[in-house]
């Protein structure tokens, strides 16, 4: 018999004052003996259940000469396991009326399935199988996924500004920094990936003790925990994954510049990238609020000043990316025809300086908070999204309800905080400037 050993029910509800109550996010948290963290959330509003498996491995964990491997491996996970044929996972999940996919970022690899709830145990059987018993005995699957991923890379790069992200990564971060190479990797490295790499990667990172499993929706917590333990409980615990080598980071690295030529782009584009603390670290929420007030929509400062008042740009925005170790605040501006890049950059600088000098108004703070609140509720509408939020909260912050915790912190934030964050971080000496110029190749 399984003892339910840890029960943490976070009930955030019944705030008397308007705005209306946040949702109840009642969560149970468990750890199996092999180190697998299990987060359960019961919600019977619809007969569907979401299963989210979050492995704490992303492109930042890749070795030299193997860029793009974490993502290629994600594809390979659908090539079958000891007790499931290649492609069976997809066929099963879609064929039972579900949806499934996976995605890889710099920080993590996330797999989800959302299915009619009577199929929950079969999903757990399949998902546990590829965690514990991945099939690594033939190159056909690897070669197939290699072709598909190379075409995914071509698809991205064959668009206007397709090289922008690579430019941002290499200019923002120092050479060798784990965020300096693209998640999709280089063609050469994708070509070099071998089955040995697959095995080593699976042994190093695809371990119960490096994963968070979230089950959210139409399920019974107690019954589900038994099922999870049945299918995952005997998968052996692995050694701690290799420690990430993060170089010390400076937020005053000096101004860095890169100009890229783009044969698909028809208009120039200016990208300003600032190093900021990683998602959820001290200062990150503050600078996120600053981004919202500076460039988060029609009434934001950059849009109002550059696009509407001065007509310097066709569009402008500011946003944070959400990377875990260190993050980026990115300002994107498309100059209006005939306007020089320098004029646009100077106008942005002037707005950042004014924000750092005087901070946001109380009204701007209230607007940012109202917008973030609606966006948070919006993000909690589907079972799949709830599961993904809980997984990230657990994996990054040991707080599955982080999405609500963060909303609470932001709602209490004084206006001096975003100002202070902007003063420290959005400085000339922390600016990477990426300029994309049309090369006219397609004319």
């Amino acid at each position: 018999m399984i003892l339910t050993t840890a029960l943490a029910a976070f009930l955030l509800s019944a705030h008397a004052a308007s705005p209306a109550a946040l949702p109840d996010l009642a969560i149970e948290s468990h750890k199996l003996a092999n180190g697998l963290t299990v987060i359960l959330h019961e919600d019977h509003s619809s007969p569907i259940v979401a299963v989210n498996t979050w492995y704490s491995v992303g492109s930042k964990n890749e070795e030299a000469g193997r860029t793009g491997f974490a993502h290629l491996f994600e594809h390979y996970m659908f090539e079958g396991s000891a007790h499931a044929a290649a492609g069976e996972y997809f066929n099963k999940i879609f064929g039972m009326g579900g949806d499934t996919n996976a995605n890889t970022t710099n920080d993590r690899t996330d797999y989800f399935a959302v299915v009619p709830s009577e199929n929950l145990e079969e999903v757990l059987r399949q998902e546990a199988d590829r965690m514990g018993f991945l099939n690594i005995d033939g190159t056909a699957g690897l070669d197939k996924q290699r072709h598909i991923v190379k075409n995914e890379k071509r698809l991205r790069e064959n668009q206007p500004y397709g090289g922008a992200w690579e430019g941002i990564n290499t200019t923002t971060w120092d050479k060798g920094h784990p965020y300096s190479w693209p998640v999709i990797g280089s063609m050469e490295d994708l070509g070099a990936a071998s089955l040995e790499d697959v095995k080593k990667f699976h042994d190093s990172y695809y371990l119960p003790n490096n994963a968070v499993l979230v089950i959210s929706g139409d399920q019974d917590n107690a019954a589900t925990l038994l099922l999870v333990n049945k299918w995952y409980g005997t998968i052996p615990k692995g050694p701690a994954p290799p420690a990430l080598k993060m170089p010390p980071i400076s937020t005053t690295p000096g101004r860095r510049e890169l100009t890229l030529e783009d044969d698909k782009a028809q208009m120039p584009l200016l990208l300003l990238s600032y190093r900021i603390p990683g998602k959820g670290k001290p200062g990150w929420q503050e600078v996120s609020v600053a981004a919202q007030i500076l460039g988060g929509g029609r009434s934001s400062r950059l849009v109002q000043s550059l696009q509407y008042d001065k007509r310097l740009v066709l569009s402008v925005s500011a946003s944070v990316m959400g990377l875990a170790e260190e993050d980026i605040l990115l300002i994107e501006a498309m100059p209006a025809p005939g306007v020089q890049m320098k004029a646009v950059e100077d106008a942005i600088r002037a707005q950042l300086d004014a924000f750092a000098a005087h901070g946001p108004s109380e009204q701007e703070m209230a607007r940012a908070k109202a917008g973030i609140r609606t966006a948070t509720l919006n993000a909690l509408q589907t079972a799949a999204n709830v599961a993904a939020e809980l997984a990230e909260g657990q994996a990054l912050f040991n707080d599955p309800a982080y999405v609500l915790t963060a909303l609470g912190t932001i709602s209490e934030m004084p206006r001096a905080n975003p100002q202070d964050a902007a003063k420290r971080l959005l400085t000339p000496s922390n600016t990477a400037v990426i300029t994309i110029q049309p090369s006219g190749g397609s004319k």
Partner: protein
Amino acid sequence: MKLAILSLTLLLPLYARAQQAVPPPKREPDRMTAVKPGPAKHFDVAPIKKGLLRNGVELALMELHRLPLVAVNIVLPLGGSALDAPGKSGLAELVASLVTEGSGAMTGLQFAQALDDIGASIYVGVSNDALTVAVFAAKENIGKALSLASQAIYSPSLPQADFDRIKAEMTAGLEQEKGSPGGQAEKKLALRLYPGHPYGTSPDEGSVASLTLADVQDFVKNRFNPPGAIIAAGGDLEYPEFEKLVTAHFDSWRTQAGAVLPSPPAAPSGQAVQRGLVIDLIDMPGSLQSSIRAGQNGVTRDNPDYMALAVMNSLLGQSSIISRLGKNLREAHGWTYGASSDLSTRKLSSALLIETDVQTDATEPAVTEILKELHRLRDETVPVAELDSIKRFMAGLFILRQQTVQALASQASTIELYGLPDGELSSYRDRVMAVTPQQIQDVAIKYLHPERLHVVITGDAAKVSKSLSKIGEVREYDSEGRPKPLG
């Protein structure tokens, strides 16, 4: 608020201390055997609750009370871009951007700030069939958001300065599109599917340059009127609340004096008949892939064969993984990241659209395989197991689509806009599951014409033209879409 947050932080360390590992099970499970599903659970799609304002505006609500959120779509069929006068393509789109730039005594900035104050959004979008004002807010703010939306519809300021700015942005947007291989191909394909019809037309430099503020003022006068309008919502409202809110803001809406209502466009006459396969090839030298867009137009939504065609489309390409195009081009050959098809449906017509971006050296083989898959649907009866899987996939996705207030508002407005019967949603899954292999083959034979499929490709002509000419007539265009001289 503060108290709740505080109690949360207090709970955390406690929970961390209390956590002990769940002991492992005594024995290995039987991993070889698939687990049989439990009994399928019943799911009722939310009923559409309907009403009517005194001005004839139709109301529809699908309730969802899980979160305090509401989405409302105000759908104006008179605002659809298919009603833009010839040569004025882009007008509806421009109006959509301009109407939120202030109304009555409010400037555009004040309008945006009023929305941001309550964390709400208003997005005005245009399709061929309607202009839609999509409102989204937390429940406690939906009244204020609807009030702002009604002002944008009743009394938009239409400032000249914002008109000029938006026009310049649209012109730049058209320039931008020239670099998008898929976008270029899609424009040309639409022209081939609907020659001479508004469904085939998209804005160009000339039509946008011709737009004037007077055109916009006429648009608002003639086309922002109640006839045909629908207000459809999804979310945390009971019907009486919804009706009260909408009545407060839209009951006094009347057709403006002197308005001339545009008449609906005629149905498209059908695609241009061509003798064999014709491939339009838009040259982008150095392109890393070929963007293949292909299609043929089809039946209207009220056609009795529509459901069988929808299932046939799903079998062909709804999923990039388990549908046939994806299984072939992606899974079997690795030529592409994705291959899909869509039964794109508008009021007067639908079209089967096929889309894939393939590595350059696979261009001709990919087109050949696409044609093969179309022929296979006609020539062979689909195996029962394959069809069952696709049908369950469609029925399951339908349930997943019922989770967001925006999706409910959109489904309710689609039902009203296309005049679909009351049971359309509640019977959807049963109708999907009832489609037989024979019906799939019958509609494939009746409607699919692979030998005269419209094919448009953007890619490196020097590398792909010769091989493509083996399977059809190739007409080359430069990257701006102008025919290339022969020779």
